């Protein structure tokens, strides 16, 4: 991960291949994982079906915390996919990081601010869309002048800060984790302390990877929770 990426230009749009490969790989893993878990569902759940049902209950629980009423039902699928996708994205860079020819070819997609902002954008657009769909245009606009009219500027600014913090919190955590992984690897192969630095780096890498698994899980949970809380502000009428 040296901040040099392969770029291609297609239809006048620039693509960072590292990001796109990482997104694609994560999405494919998420799809096949969930697809495999959902094979042949039975009324009496067995084995892998329990895992998926637990996951669904978990993400539905996140949705229900923010939106206890029936308006939360439609967000169950989004919460599940968002959670599993971010979780897989966070972990994938802990396992694979590919640098070749002076370019970074593979790392966690969520270690890039563009991607986390893209995810936050999806949540933002969706929350505003359903805000209008559920409460109507007037109800949606009324949300900006509540509880009192002079708070409208703050409410508008809050939309941006929510968006930015949602994206950058995830990016910062994952990016920092991967940078540290890289630094530990460089320490291990620096040859400064000979075999001692290699062994120390090896152990440190294991410890940091384990901790990053924890951080990645927590961040996925936080992202989905906040996404649902922000959505509930738009959708739920107090």
């Amino acid at each position, binding site marked *: 991960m040296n901040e040099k990426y392969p770029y291609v230009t297609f239809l006048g749009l620039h*693509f*960072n291949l590292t990001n796109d490969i990482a997104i694609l790989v994560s999405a494919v893993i998420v799809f096949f994982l969930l697809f495999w878990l959902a094979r042949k569902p039975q009324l009496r759940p067995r084995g892998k079906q329990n895992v998926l*049902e637990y996951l*669904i209950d978990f993400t539905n629980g996140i949705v229900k915390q923010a939106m206890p009423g029936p308006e939360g039902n439609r967000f169950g699928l989004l919460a599940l996919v968002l959670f599993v996708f971010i979780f897989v994205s966070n972990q994938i860079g802990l396992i694979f990081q590919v640098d070749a020819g002076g370019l970074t070819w593979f790392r966690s997609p969520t270690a890039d601010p*563009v991607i986390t902002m893209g995810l936050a954008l999806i949540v933002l657009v969706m929350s505003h869309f359903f805000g209008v769909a559920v409460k109507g245009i007037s109800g949606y606009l009324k949300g900006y002048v509540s509880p009192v009219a002079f708070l409208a500027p703050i409410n508008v600014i809050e939309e941006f800060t929510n968006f930015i913090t949602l994206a950058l919190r995830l990016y910062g955590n994952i990016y920092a984790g991967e940078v540290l992984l890289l630094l530990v690897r460089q320490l291990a192969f620096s040859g400064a302390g000979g075999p001692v630095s290699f062994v120390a780096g090896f152990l440190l890498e294991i410890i940091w990877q384990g901790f990053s698994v924890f951080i990645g899980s927590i961040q996925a949970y936080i992202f989905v929770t906040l996404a649902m809380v922000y959505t509930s502000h738009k959708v739920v009428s107090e």
Partner: protein
Amino acid sequence: MATLGDTLFLVATFVVLLILVGHFAWKPVTKIMTERQTKVDGDLDYAENARNEAQALQAKREAELKNSRADAVKIVNTAKENGEKQRQQMLDATTQEVATLKQNASADIAQERQDALASAKDDVAELSVAIATKIIGKELNAADQQSLIDDYIKGLGDANGVD
């Protein structure tokens, strides 16, 4: 900068992922979960109903048992009463019969005594006439003397306290 391209790529991938997961994983599993929920609800309702029915049936049976016990007591009481009544009736009838019999018997006895007395009176009269005839040696006209002797005898009876 690759911001726009990557964002579009992410959004497109995410939407496709959302659709695919929704179709292949979310829908079948949530369907099964809903079915299970419905089944559990139904089973619970069914169990509740069955329990209520059993309780109602038990209450009914207990009530019936109580009723039949009361019936039995009633029947026994009626039988006892009837028996008592019958006994009383029989006793009364017997008592009455005995009384009648006794009355008849005493009437008969009185009658017979009367008859015996009457016949004894006649005999005494005849005897007296016979004695008198013997004594006087002359046959009295029995018919003429009869009333006179009757008076005597009656006087005798009164003096002896006999009716």
